[in-house]
């Protein structure tokens, strides 16, 4: 005896299946030229940090995080040490 389920349920699952397969196709076939441009620029400028438009975070400019062991100085104020324990 065959399985009997309502037509709507079958249609629903087929629809979900199609959505998942569409997602996987896009994920696997996504072309990389867009990525290559950014790699080329990063190679040219030797900068890889994000262009964040945020005043408190500027990783591209010297941060003062790495201190000289024999010449310590005060850490800069734009660090998030208050969120993450060092």
């Amino acid at each position: 005896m065959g399985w009997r389920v309502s037509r709507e349920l079958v249609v629903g699952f087929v629809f979900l299946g199609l959505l998942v397969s569409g997602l996987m196709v896009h994920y696997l076939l996504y072309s990389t030229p867009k990525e290559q441009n950014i790699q080329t620029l990063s190679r040219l400028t030797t900068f890889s940090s994000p262009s964040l438009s945020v005043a408190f975070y500027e990783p591209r400019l010297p941060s003062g995080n790495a201190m000289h062991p024999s010449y310590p100085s005060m850490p800069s104020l734009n660090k998030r040490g208050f969120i993450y324990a060092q």
Partner: protein
Amino acid sequence: MHNNAFFHFLSLLLFKQKNKHIGAIFISVIIIFLLSSVLFISSSLQKSLQSMLKNQPDFTISRLQAGRAVDTPTEWIEKIVQIDGVSAVTPRVYGRYFFAPNENSFLIVGVDFFDEQSNRSLQELMETTDLKSFFAMPSMLVGEGVQKFMTAHYYSDSFSFKLPNGSFKKVAIAQQLPSSTNLIANDMIVMPLELAKEIFAMEEESITDIALNVPNDAEWDTIVGKLHLLFYDAQVIDKREISKAYKSLYNYKGGLFLILYLITIITFMLILYQRYSMVYSAEKKEIGILRAIGWSIQDILKLKFYETLVIVISSFILGVVLAYIFVFIFDAPLLQEIFLGGENLANSVVFVPTIEFGILGSLFLFFALPFFASVLIPVWKIAVTPPKEAML
């Protein structure tokens, strides 16, 4: 109970009572959609940045004076080159140029275009512009954000930089950097090294910092020690610190959303629990009827389990697929501003599809388990009571 009849009944029941389930599915889809979008953005940015970090020099060294980074003397380069195990020692000139009227700023990066590698990269980026005309006069490449800003301020072909001595330096805009590089280049201006030095009024023998590579990872700590012995006023930053900074930055923002998610999911689960355990709820009556016609407790739990499973799976798939489309096809309008900020120049980036299946799996568990618990526990409580009492 025969499986076939059971599933037929289940599928009929699901669509008969679809109005009852649509609300739960709708809220679940929104919760999953929001959290997946944030996770997709965060993992995509982290992946892009970590992959770019491969092109980043292993160390950067700059001079400190009174706790502040100051210009580094070029003579340091000769001393660094002599350290065994060090390669690709290159001077870097960069800094922020502030456009005072609007309190906006650009990141100017000076590049030595006479270096063979840099020249090749420049050619790859400048598909439309002639290199000869680029070098014929002071020219620069600008990021999309900078281009838009300059055009809005009537500097469509060239920009006049105000130098520290009060004079102006006119620099032609050769080309806009491709939009796909916005993630790092939105506020960036790339120009020849000497021109950047002129704009920052740096001395002939000064640079911002020195980048260097140490191909053998095992030597990294030794080299840092040697650098510190050579220069007592030096600050050495290595690539590992930058990598950590990226991870913590996006984990921090993703974490905020995770907290919001937990609050939302707990609230939602409480509502669901309440719906089933209410004294006069329709669910209670329905379970009572099923028990009265001979269904066992196990059958009822099985029915509710499969019913919930269908709701959970459909909501999860819909939420994740919608989030994927929103982030990787429409580039997450509005939400991306939380990650990129909008204080300086508005940015708009292209997200490279990245799915972390482990995180998605955990998200499914964190969503499905409380969902099942908040449905099955009250259902079991009703099912074990006598049908007559349950239908009251």
